[in-house]
Every structure is written in structure tokens, then in C-alpha cells.
């Protein structure tokens, strides 16, 4: 605390001594922990149609370090990752991802194909060999999170599709990656 007070006092002195030396404001772009939704693929024929609702407003704010939580100027989505969580069978999989905000219907976001093994480490929305984004859906998602002061309270992520028959329940997950611009002091 003493260091911080000293720093603040001297910082104030410096800003009066040399106001042209320090950019004001200093804007830093920080990558936040992703907001994640997962769908369960039950044992059986390998088909899945599952949804999960995330308290996205709270989760985003919890992912922001408390030292600059009240200094966020902008928020943007910079990537979406599809991955598997847990042991998965070998074989091809294909499916679609949708999202729904508190108001409105479901919106198609992306189509994914490939092998389950391809998604072990996660596949980016920008990987053209595995994922085909729905540009209108991506834009609708981006627009929904463009105003830091008016974020949706919740987002429901739904995954549908099918793959090889599974003998052990596992999950397909979607990570939405956010970047925040914060005013640093």
C-alpha cells in the first residue's frame, strides 16, 4: 500500500512536471479467460443435441482482473474454439453450433467436421479444414457483445450432430474468447 501511495503521489507530480511524457490514457488490450459451454455426448449411437446456458455477463466480469475491472472501455470476441473434453472414440464427427440470447431465437454459428481426435487440442473458427463459420451468425454474436455496458445476461449454446457410437460419456465444448481494452493507470 505504501508503495502504491508513493507511486501515485510521484505519478501525480510527474504528470504535472512532464505531462507530455506519459500517454493519457494508457489503453491495454488483455485477453480474458474464455467463456465455455459444453454439450454432453451420451453413450449410445453417438448423436448429440444438447444445450447449456451460461451467465455470460457475470462470467466475463469474473474473468477480468479486479485491478482493472471497472476500467474496461471495449470488449470484443476474437476467436471461437471447438474442442472435446474427456476420452473420445475414434471416427469422424460433424455437427453445428448455435447460440441464443435472452431475447430472440437460436442463431446458427458454425458447422464443424473432422475426426474427434482433431478437436483434442481445440480447433479455431478460422480453421477452414474443420470449421465453416456462418458469417451472419458470427456477426450477430460480435454485435451482441460490442457494448461493455449492455452485455447479455445469459447466452445459451447448443450443439447438434453425430459421430461414432460412444461407450463413455464425454463432452464437446465451445470456448468463446474475449479481449478487453482497459484503461491502465
Amino acid at each position: 500500500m505504501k508503495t502504491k501511495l508513493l507511486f501515485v503521489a510521484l505519478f501525480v507530480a510527474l504528470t504535472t512536471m512532464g505531462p507530455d511524457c506519459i500517454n493519457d490514457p494508457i489503453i491495454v488490450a488483455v485477453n480474458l479467460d474464455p467463456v465455455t459451454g459444453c454439450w454432453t455426448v451420451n453413450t449410445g449411437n453417438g448423436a448429440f443435441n444438447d444445450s447449456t446456458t451460461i451467465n455470460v455477463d457475470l462470467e466475463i466480469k469474473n474473468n477480468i482482473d479486479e485491478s482493472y475491472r471497472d476500467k474496461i472501455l471495449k470488449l470484443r470476441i476474437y476467436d471461437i474454439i471447438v474442442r472435446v473434453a474427456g476420452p473420445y472414440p475414434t471416427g469422424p464427427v460433424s455437427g453445428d453450433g448455435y447460440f441464443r440470447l435472452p431475447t430472440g431465437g437460436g442463431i446458427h454459428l458454425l458447422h464443424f467436421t473432422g475426426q474427434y481426435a482433431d478437436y483434442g487440442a481445440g480447433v479455431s473458427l478460422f480453421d477452414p479444414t474443420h470449421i465453416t463459420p456462418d458469417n451472419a451468425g458470427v456477426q450477430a454474436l460480435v454485435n451482441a457483445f460490442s457494448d461493455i455496458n449492455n452485455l447479455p445476461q445469459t447466452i445459451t449454446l447448443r450443439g447438434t450432430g453425430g459421430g461414432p457410437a460412444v461407450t463413455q460419456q464425454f463432452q464437446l465444448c465451445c470456448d468463446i474468447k474475449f479481449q478487453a481494452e482497459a484503461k491502465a493507470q
Partner: protein
Amino acid sequence: MKPLRQFLQCGVALLILTLLLGVSFASADSTLENAVKAFGQKEVEGYIQPMADFFGANMSAGWYHSAAIPQMGFSLSVNVIAMGSVVGDDQKSFTLSPPGFAPFKTATVFGGQGGSTTNPGGLSYAGSGGALNATLFPLATLQLHIGSIYGTEVVIRGLPIPEISGAPKVTFFGAGIRHSISQYLVEFPVDIAAGVFFNTIKFGDLIEMKSFAFGAQASKSFSVLEIYGGFAYEKSSMDLTYGSTTAGGGNVNISLDGANKFRGTIGLGLNLAILHLYGDANLGTVTNFSAGLGFGF
């Protein structure tokens, strides 16, 4: 604000701020420090590389202002030396290449507004804005010259930085040794010496900067004026260690090499009995200046 006044105010302000930022960064309680900790390794490397370049160039500056070293006899001088590296346009931006986006230019710590890019899919990514607006990046030190035995003198430098409760310890120390070459030459028109120098600045366990330089110096006196110069090879590094708070950042261990590898120096000194004033320009990858005031014999 008039240019000279702005230059001096900014220089003093930046010197203090540089040290404070180091203390604050290492003591983990500033918003800027927490934000920088949110950088992944690749972004922080580009963002602070110029700071590594400038610290390195500054640490290797100001070690001498004359090549004349007595062969024998006690000599001592106490000096206050200031150094400054010129912040060029090249040091204000770097190219960032985030996955899924085309490379784009964004600001370093000395830049202005951060850049951004949007990919064909409609997603955007931005770099951070710069923090410091300066034309010169400064450093200062106290320096002691002690000689001389068989044309050899020892140079010691450092800056006593008071300990602040709760903050990591800051140490700034350097040492060098210089030897007269011209003592072996009969009636050589100029004085010639060679030297090797080490320097280290540490902010706790978080930031450590080191430099090493060796080279040759020459000088010639004309009454109270003395022209001096030299060439030196130098190497510097900045090591940064912290736990990143960004998604997937993990522990970040960065070692950045200073850009300066070689410098040429030209300077002018004024010797008034025990008072010595001097200043020099250093040309290398980083353009660097130093000036000093010394008392001694």
C-alpha cells in the same frame, strides 16, 4: 512548452518513472503492471523490446571521458553521469501476429494508439497502446574512477536507491577496468586506452538487466578542452519473469537482447582543475548520448 524545457522535464520525469515502474511492476500492485501481466509472451516481447534496447545502450554509455590514464600515482574522481537513448520511429511500433489474423502494426511501450485488425470472418483483435511519450529514454548514475597502477584504473558505478517497505529491492551496480595502451608507445600523438565494463540493474526477482562492453578509447587535450572517442563491442539483455494472467499465458520467462552490438563514440570534455564537464554522442543501432560532471584529480 518550449522544446528544451519539455526535453529536460520529460527526461527527469521519465528517469524517475522508469525506476518507479520497475519497482511498481516488481511489487505487483499497479494497474499497468497487472495489465502487462495479462500479455502473453509474444505480445510483451514486442511491446517492451525497445526498453531492453534503450537500457542496454544506456548501461554501456558514459564509462569514460578521456583515454589519458597516468602510469602510476593516485587518482580519484567522483562523477554524476546522465545517459539518454533516442526514441526513433522504429521503436514506436512492432508487428503482432495473433493466430487467425494477418500480421499488423501496433504500438510498443513508446508508441501511440494501438493498432487493430479484422479478419474476413468479422472478428477483430487489437494491440495495446503505448505508455510513454518521449524522444529520449534516460538513465543516470554515480561513477567513481580510481587509479592508477601501471596505467590501470578501476571504474565503479551505481545508484543508491532507498528501500521501500513492501517493494522488491532495486540494485544498480557496474564496474569496469581500463588500461593505458599509449604508455607503451613512444611519443604517440594521442592517448589510447582499452577497457571492459559490466553493469546490472535488478528489480527484485522480476526484472534483471545486464550489460557487457569492451573497446578502445582515444583522446587528445588542447588546453582545457579534450576531444575523446572510441569503439566498443557491447551486449545486453533484459530478463523478465512473471505469472501471466492472460488466458493460456502461464509463467512468462522472457529474455530480450539489446539491439546495440557495436558503438562509435565522439565526445568533448572541459577540464577546469578538479572540475570536469563532458558530453558525447554514441552511434550504433541505438543513438545514445551521455553527459557528466566530475570532481577529482
